[in-house]
């Protein structure tokens, strides 16, 4: 395509570069864009909104892990800051747009400052050390959030109301559009979808800029990048801050969708593991991997369980020992874990990388 083509500039010249991948991505995009009309009902809409939020969260993590080669375990901390930013603003002030704006800005500033602090303090050290330190900091933050009862609501978290336009009772039109009543819930969904799309394109812009190239150079060989005259620590810190800011916005969107923020939904280590799985299975070092990883993972989380439950029931009625347990509906993470290990070994490039290789 021509360089001045609008799609070219939207995607920052980073095409899917594989027909299958392009087709799959288009399907995901169409499904997400028309989710309220294609899949009516609250459960499918919930899944679609979660996919949108996690695409952003995973893409922002990929900026660190895949593009810069930094292993951080503090990503849920920033996600949580976004969530709590909304929660605290909405709970303590009136649920209005200005209050929401203030909450988001404060959360963003706090997250970026914290990211900068962690970065300057520990990004000089080796990957392994940074991973451990971020793990410790993140667990400290989770403890803090559950201890500060007066501010965060402690273990129970906070439920709150959001601006009137986004509440389920709100109606945009009197008549249904294409058989679907456009209520505040659907408006919230579109707010999430459009923000996610915008942020994703922005991330694509970042990684395909000269700045993004330097990050990849650092990932490949930080010593050589330093020798070329790039201040590695500065670039790493900026990447860390960018990624933290994006994760914060993902937290904000999730908080708007759930209308609840608590330690389990934003700060738990399980979410960190989910993010890791999504990045690696989708494909590290390519943002399209984040889309596929998040979509596959969340669909599996919501629908694979049902299938596994049925299969397990069949095995159980056949009287086979232990196997029903292996396929128990709650054991879906076991299979994704195995897929994760296998993908680190056999296709470290993930699904996206594999699709791109197949084209060649």
């Amino acid at each position, binding site marked *: 395509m021509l360089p001045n083509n609008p799609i070219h500039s939207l995607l920052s010249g980073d095409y899917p570069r594989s027909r299958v991948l392009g087709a799959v991505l288009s399907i995901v995009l169409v499904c997400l864009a028309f989710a309220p009309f294609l899949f009516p009902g609250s459960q499918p809409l919930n899944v679609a909104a979660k996919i949108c939020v996690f695409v952003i969260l995973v893409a922002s993590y990929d900026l660190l892990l895949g593009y810069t080669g930094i292993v951080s375990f503090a990503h849920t901390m920033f996600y949580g800051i976004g969530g709590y930013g909304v929660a605290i603003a909405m709970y303590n002030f009136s649920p209005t747009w200005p209050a929401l704006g203030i909450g988001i800005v404060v959360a963003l500033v706090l997250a970026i400052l914290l990211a900068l602090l962690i970065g300057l303090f520990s990004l000089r050290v080796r990957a*392994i050390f940074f991973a451990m330190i971020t*793990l*410790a900091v993140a*667990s*400290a933050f989770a403890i803090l959030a559950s201890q500060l009862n007066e501010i965060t609501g402690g273990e129970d978290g906070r439920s709150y109301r959001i601006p009137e336009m986004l509440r389920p009772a709100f109606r945009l039109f009197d008549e249904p559009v294409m058989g679907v009543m456009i209520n505040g819930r659907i408006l919230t969904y579109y707010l999430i979808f459009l923000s996610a799309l915008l942020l994703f394109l922005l991330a694509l812009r970042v990684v395909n800029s000269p700045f993004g190239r330097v990050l990849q150079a650092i990932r490949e060989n930080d010593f050589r990048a330093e020798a070329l005259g790039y201040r590695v620590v500065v670039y790493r810190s900026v990447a860390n801050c960018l990624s933290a800011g994006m994760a914060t916005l993902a937290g904000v969107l999730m908080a708007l969708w759930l209308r609840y923020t608590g330690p389990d939904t934003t700060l738990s280590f399980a979410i960190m593991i989910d993010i890791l799985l999504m990045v690696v299975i989708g494909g590290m070092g390519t943002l399209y991997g984040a889309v596929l990883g998040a979509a596959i993972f969340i669909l599996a989380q919501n629908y694979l369980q049902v299938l596994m439950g049925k299969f397990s029931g069949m095995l159980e009625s056949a009287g086979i020992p232990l196997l029903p*347990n*292996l396929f128990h509906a709650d054991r879906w993470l076991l299979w*994704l874990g*195995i897929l994760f290990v296998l993908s680190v070994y056999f296709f470290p490039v993930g699904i996206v990388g594999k699709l791109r290789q197949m084209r060649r």
Partner: protein
Amino acid sequence: MSTAAETASTVTLPKVRVDYLPVLLVPILMLVALPLVGSFSTWVTLTVAALAMGMMIFLMASGLTLVFGLMDVLNFGHGVFISFGAYVSLVALGPLAGWVESTNLWLNVGALLACILVAMLVTGALGYAFERVVIRPVYGQHLKQILITMGGMIVAEQMIHVIWGASPIPLRLPEGLRGAIVIGDAAMEKYRVIAVVLGLLVFGVMHLVLNRTKIGLLIRAGVENPEMVEALGYKIRRLFVGVFIVGSALAGLGGVLWAFYRQTLTAGMGMEVNVLIFIVIIIGGLGSVGGCFIGAILVALVANYTGFLAPKLALGSSILLMVAILLWRPQGLYPVAKR
């Protein structure tokens, strides 16, 4: 007179300078805490409890720090061995129910030791398998190591759910080990005293093996310079695997003690202490067993004292301690691995 002869008599091997400053931190911390806590008997109770906790953390962390120092592998899945050790002890306790319920102290201790033995054997074997299957292909690649050991941890944790079910399982201490010994006003739980004794014993043995035997010499040399040890004709690979197995078995031992201490078993218990273990080995200096020992005791002391003085701070206290130590010595108390 000949200076050569004189230098020959005085210049022997340079003496290893022992750094006592970090060791002093422990008694200093105890002394500082005494007036703050106020009552002497409470202080004794707290200190013994902290020492017991420290020993358990040390047992769980020592394997990890050894593996890191020697093999340059940070095993994020280390917590799995802790969990497995705990669950395996449950299996071992099954046929020993008579010993557990008996009032004979020796049978009680026997049951505990049998648990430990079985758990160590099983986790050692598991460690061997883990090293072969999961870790061996990724030596020297830190990013992959972190990812793959995390993956191994997820799978193993789910396997515990498959085998033993997902709900927490209560674990009862053997009859004679419950309750406390009261000396004066100070109450010390019997089990914690046993944990202290066991921990000291293991530390002593490790110290002797590392400093007084040829294997220890090779291990320490391997930490310093693996290529050189290899070039001298020793099979460092075999040493690696051995250390990994011992490290896993120690984690299993720590897991058994930790499980009896908490008296409930959950599949995530290993992962929960993983954070604490990382903090301990960062404080101690990656790869250092002595540092790990002191780090574990420091963390436990600080956690227990703050738990009594300012309960809100207790959970985050170890992080604060880590930050303080890293500001003082950025590489940890006893840095070993120079990589």
